[in-house]
């Protein structure tokens, strides 16, 4: 199912109803209509994550120590 486009009202509801920080209106506005450009906009990130939801990760854990592998010189 394709998620609907994120709206500021959704973010306001999350801010007001869940345990979040007191984000200012202009910060929520920036999330739905970004102007700063530094990083991927939230909507794009969510779209990417929606695509990645379909990737089968099996039983892969979220953490795995780096192996100190000995390899041939």
């Amino acid at each position: 199912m394709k998620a609907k486009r994120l709206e500021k009202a959704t973010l306001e509801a999350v801010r007001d109803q869940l345990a979040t920080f007191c984000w200012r209106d202009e910060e929520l506005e920036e999330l739905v209509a970004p102007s700063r450009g530094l990083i991927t906009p939230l909507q794009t990130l969510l779209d990417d994550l929606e695509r990645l939801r379909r990737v089968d990760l099996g039983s892969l854990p979220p953490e795995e120590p780096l192996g100190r592998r000995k390899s041939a010189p």
Partner: protein
Amino acid sequence: MTERILFEPATALAERVRAGELSCVELISCFLRRIEALNRSSHAFITVTAERALREARAWDQASVEAKASAPLLGVPLAVKDLIDVAGAPTTGGSRVLFDNLPAEDAETVAVLARSGAITVGKANLHEFAYGTTGENAHFGTCANAYDTTRLACGSSSGSAIAVALGLAAAALGTDTGGSVRVPAVMNGLVGIKPTYGLVPSTGVLPFSWTLDHVGFITRTIGDGAALLAAFSGRAPATTEPRAANGSRPLGGIRLGVPATLSTDRMDHAVRAAFEHALRQEAQCGAAIEEVALPDLAIARTVSLTIQMPEALSFHGGYLERRGELYGPDLRAGLAVGQFLLAEHYLRAKRLAVRMRRDVDRLFERIDAILTPATPIVAPEFGAAHAFLDGVEEPIGNALTRYTSLLNVTGHPAVVLPSALHPLGLPMGVQIVGRHFEEGRMLALARLIAEEPAFRIPPPSCDRGAES
């Protein structure tokens, strides 16, 4: 001579001191005079630790011959990113938020380098709390590029790079969460090393993302980077030779993997030409070049952001509550991204990171190193929010870290070095990626590449002026 030594490799300076050509006090005083002259205009340092530096220099001058002989970085003036604790100097994180943060102890990394003889001369400027790769800082000033003052030094370790590029320090410590050591290093014609995740300790370093943060080095030469890495004794065999050379060709027998997607990646045309030229050079030197399927770099970017922004928010949450008005607006907006991702998003990204690490590990079963452009663009102009490549707009931070961010996700070591000058007079570079904990082999290969005449770029004009 005093002007000339400002631009000598750190290892050469240490050798001069050990040989008695100059004292630690003379060396440090020379750099402090340079800082006094240029810091206001360059914004390289937020805090200059002159008193401590001279005290340590005097102590080293009075140390025994044996102690000096066992200090490979004897007298080396070191810039420390102001995210990393230096006892007695404020750690601001490049922010107004930590105006009262005065650490009593050195970060472990600083302490290790100090025991090797390095002397901290100042706390280097950065993008606020290492959030962005442009290095812009509204409060402490934005560092201009060493090659063109209308362009950004880039970051987030902007001051660390500029300190070395302008001869205010001989080496620098930075942190790298998506490219924050490598990008400013190469954009200013320097070497940037991001070691294997966890190899260089992060105790005493303000975190941005526990999963992705790496402490790294910015130096003038590969040899200097190897010397800094070697200070973390026994954990980084920094001078290991790569696979035995075949015949007289320096890269004979080396297998270099190149991302198969490069031919269709959007990038500056001169950057592409320079990279293709570099590949031809490597092949002529005997390297076997083969295309490899790297994990998707756009997905790596998504994974990186989905991990780092909630982690950054988690660290900054307390300060955000108490001192939220002191944060810059770009960082506040970034932290808000971390708020509205879901817990399952974060865990999915962490699991994808594990898969990407395994995928890159598998590539190393048949190649010795991966070679990529360091960045697809050159240093942007002040105020640039987007890069435009082949008519397509891309957030500037994403463009700058396109080839670097994956290695923070997988934890593999990477080094960048300049490879050519763009027609605009700006440095371009390549990135070499090695196996986990095989920095020695990676740096030895980088050294071979850096020694090729085609890879030598002229220093910035400040350096040329000092040499004339």
